């Protein structure tokens, strides 16, 4: 059959559509760098919606109230941590730019503050994070003020239980209660937050839900709901539901697959092409080669082969879950260019015996090395190529899960990588 291969030329190609890849595209867009982005959405769809910078210091028991102070401490504790090379001002600027973009595109976020926010987890435990979606902001406030509140959950919804939230919080928040209701027109079977969120984009569903909420609200002033307040216009849906019920309302994230992550993914997929980014979603780059004046990415989507030529490339392919790193019997390797991976000397050292060992597992710090300009280091100890940069959790020397710093590492390193690309392209 006669087929046409598709060909694109850009200044920057971003490989990976996790938070790091998407953040890199946003920063590049703001710098007017023409960009193509390829990649499966990876972990974005799993996030709670909270953007963590630093919630814990390795080895410490308690959570971090002030992440900016803690970053200073990080320099002693984990000298090679990728956040160490980045100034607090840059990190703040990166978060500001990222959240401002989300806000302009329809999901309002709080700006990075001087201290962490104490936010509610799906189970009703507390966690420290830097920025929260506006739909969730009233929760931490109500918790701090101990306002009379009802957590409403739904028959058939798994992964979120009002009773559990109350059980975990009632000591600190005595006026907290839980109620279970039926979601409009979803009387039986398992129901998914995603489906509820989409149904709430319809006015009639909102009106029906508002009535059911009012019926169980009692003397509450604030209502907590699982995160289901619409998919692509959550701030509007929240305002509407507040108008219809007369109560202040906030969302609590649910267990994955959860709405806040899907919201982000759909926002990026919707907005990036509108803003001129060439987005090739849900595909993986199969080869990346360099010559003197450009890099060439090859991939195939449903419709056939695609070639992208770019002046610079940011590798943001994540770790094992997303396929940026691969674990083999012989060791861990980087999957696209076979870049050297800093890793434990032998497989036996990957994990401590106990999965819950408080020291964390060495494998969770494996990753690639970069120089000061965010260029990955090759076999010979020098930058692999002047056109190659890297960002996100593929970088070595950090355990983002234990330090509650997933989005922080992704956003801050993407910011610096794009800055380096800009310098390189426009020097």
């Amino acid at each position: 059959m006669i087929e046409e291969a598709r060909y694109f030329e850009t200044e920057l190609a971003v490989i990976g559509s996790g938070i790091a890849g998407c953040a890199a595209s946003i920063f590049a867009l703001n710098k007017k760098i023409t960009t193509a982005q390829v990649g499966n959405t990876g972990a974005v769809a799993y996030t709670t919606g909270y953007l963590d910078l630093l919630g814990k210091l390795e080895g410490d028991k308690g959570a971090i109230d002030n992440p900016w102070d803690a970053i200073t401490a990080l320099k002693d504790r984990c000298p090679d941590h990728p956040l160490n090379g980045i100034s607090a001002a840059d990190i703040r600027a990166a978060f500001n730019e990222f959240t401002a973009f989300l806000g302009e595109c329809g999901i309002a976020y709080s700006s990075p503050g001087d201290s962490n926010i104490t936010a509610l987890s799906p189970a009703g435990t507390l966690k420290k994070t830097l920025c929260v979606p506006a739909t969730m902001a009233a929760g931490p406030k109500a918790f701090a003020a101990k306002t009379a509140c009802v957590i409403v959950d739904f028959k058939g919804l798994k992964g979120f239980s009002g009773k559990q939230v109350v059980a975990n919080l009632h000591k600190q928040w005595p006026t907290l209660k839980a109620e279970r209701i039926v979601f409009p027109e979803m009387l039986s079977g398992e129901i998914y937050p995603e489906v509820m969120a989409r149904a709430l984009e319809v006015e009639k569903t909102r009106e029906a839900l508002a009535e059911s909420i009012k019926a169980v609200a009692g003397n509450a002033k604030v209502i907590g709901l699982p995160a289901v307040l619409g998919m692509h216009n959550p701030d509007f849906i929240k305002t509407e539901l507040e108008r219809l019920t007369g109560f202040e309302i906030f969302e609590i994230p649910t267990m994955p697959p959860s709405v806040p992550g899907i919201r982000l993914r759909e926002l990026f997929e919707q907005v990036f092409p509108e803003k001129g980014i060439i987005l090739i979603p849900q595909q993986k780059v199969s080869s990346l080669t360099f010559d003197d004046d450009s890099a060439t990415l090859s991939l195939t989507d449903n419709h056939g082969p695609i070639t992208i030529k770019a002046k610079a490339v940011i590798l943001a392919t994540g770790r094992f879950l997303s396929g940026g790193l691969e674990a083999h019997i012989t060791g861990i390797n980087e999957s696209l260019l076979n870049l050297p991976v800093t890793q434990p000397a032998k497989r036996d050292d990957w994990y401590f015996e106990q999965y819950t060992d408080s020291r964390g597992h060495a494998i969770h710090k494996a990753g690639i090395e970069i120089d000061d300009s965010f260029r990955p280091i090759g076999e010979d100890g020098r930058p692999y190529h002047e056109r190659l940069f890297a960002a996100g959790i593929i970088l070595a020397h950090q355990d983002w899960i234990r330090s509650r710093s997933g989005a922080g590492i992704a956003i801050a390193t993407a910011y610096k990588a794009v800055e380096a690309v800009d310098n390189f392209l426009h020097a």
Partner: protein
Amino acid sequence: MSDQKTTTLNFKELAMELLPEGASFEACLTCGLCSSGCPASGLENMDPRKFIRMALLGMDEELSTTPWIWCCTQCKRCQHVCPMNIDISQLVFIARGNWPQEKKPSGIVRSCELIRSTDSTSAMGLPPEDFIFVVDDVLKEVRETQTGFEKLEAPMDKPGTHFFVNQNSREPMSEPDEMVPLWKIFDMVGADWTYSSKGWAAENFCMFSGDDDAWYKVIKTRVDAVNKLGCKVWLNTECGHSYYTMWNGIHKFNMDVNFKLESLVTYYAQWIREGKLPVNSDWNVNNIKFTVQDPCMIVRKAYGDSIADDMRFVVKKLVGEENFIDMQPNRSANYCCGGGGGFLQAGMTDHRRAYGKRKFDQIAATKAAYVLTPCHNCHSQMEDIGHFYGGDYGVVHFWTLICLSLGILGENERTYLGPDLLALLD
């Protein structure tokens, strides 16, 4: 009912053979994104994640017999949202093929049989000579009754033309006047085109019955017809699955063809860009709102977002940028309407409508008065769920609105216009 037993398949083994490395079922994280985003979840107590888990656990007998496979429209949305790119629609296809013919939904089987009953490949069994007659008859009438179209053409079996144009059977069979707007569009842009008396039909339900052999034969008839006439482009009409079954079939069966496969939508966009179709939205004085349905068969499963973007370009030109409201989610992430995969033919009405509730909510959220879609199946399903769930939107073809905008929509070509649009034409 026959007492033929359904063979039990080994799904795990089949998956191993089918799926490329890195997309195997064993990579499944059990995260549930697929099920959360699949409108067939919960029907027959099944969902895509469960299907995969059961395959890995070797629950082959249950999977070999579950009627859920006829509720999965093979829309591949699950794969689109899966971080590991796992595609369960391929297993559903195999499971369908494995059902004894007598147990398969008779509507799908019957449609496939009819397709193969004549050289037309028409699912309504319309033979070549009847197709020739209807086209001729309608053409004569238009020439006689519509000013400006005295020389309108609808070429049949004309060799060497640029375009080979296919045609859904529904029009010649039950609403022949609906063929005319497209002829007028071709006339206006000066397209070099032909119909064919063989292999002309657009629909292809053989793929949905899971019958590889029948699917191949239908495609073969169509490929031969194009090759025989020596056309350069097989131009697919406003229909989703006819494109997909042809395009995917040619790849799957490694067929040798020396023409291109294209979709009408891309040409609408091109002709508008080139100024050959001078459409505009001046007629929409009351700012009537429109949304658009992305057929998964041409968007997510084939072209990707490029054709979806073409569709939006065309719609905005036709109705005015401010009068277009996108459904959410859209383009490659769009929900299947629930009419595809043979669902409309399968007779499982309650299930099909439950599936379609997602689509209904999407449309309702836009508050649009009309949905435009270049797909016959989508069209029928959205009309049906609209009536069923009490929606008050209409569904229109692109060709209707293009001709409306150009002021050349004949009186018999207005079936899908509601009073608000009809009022503008008087």
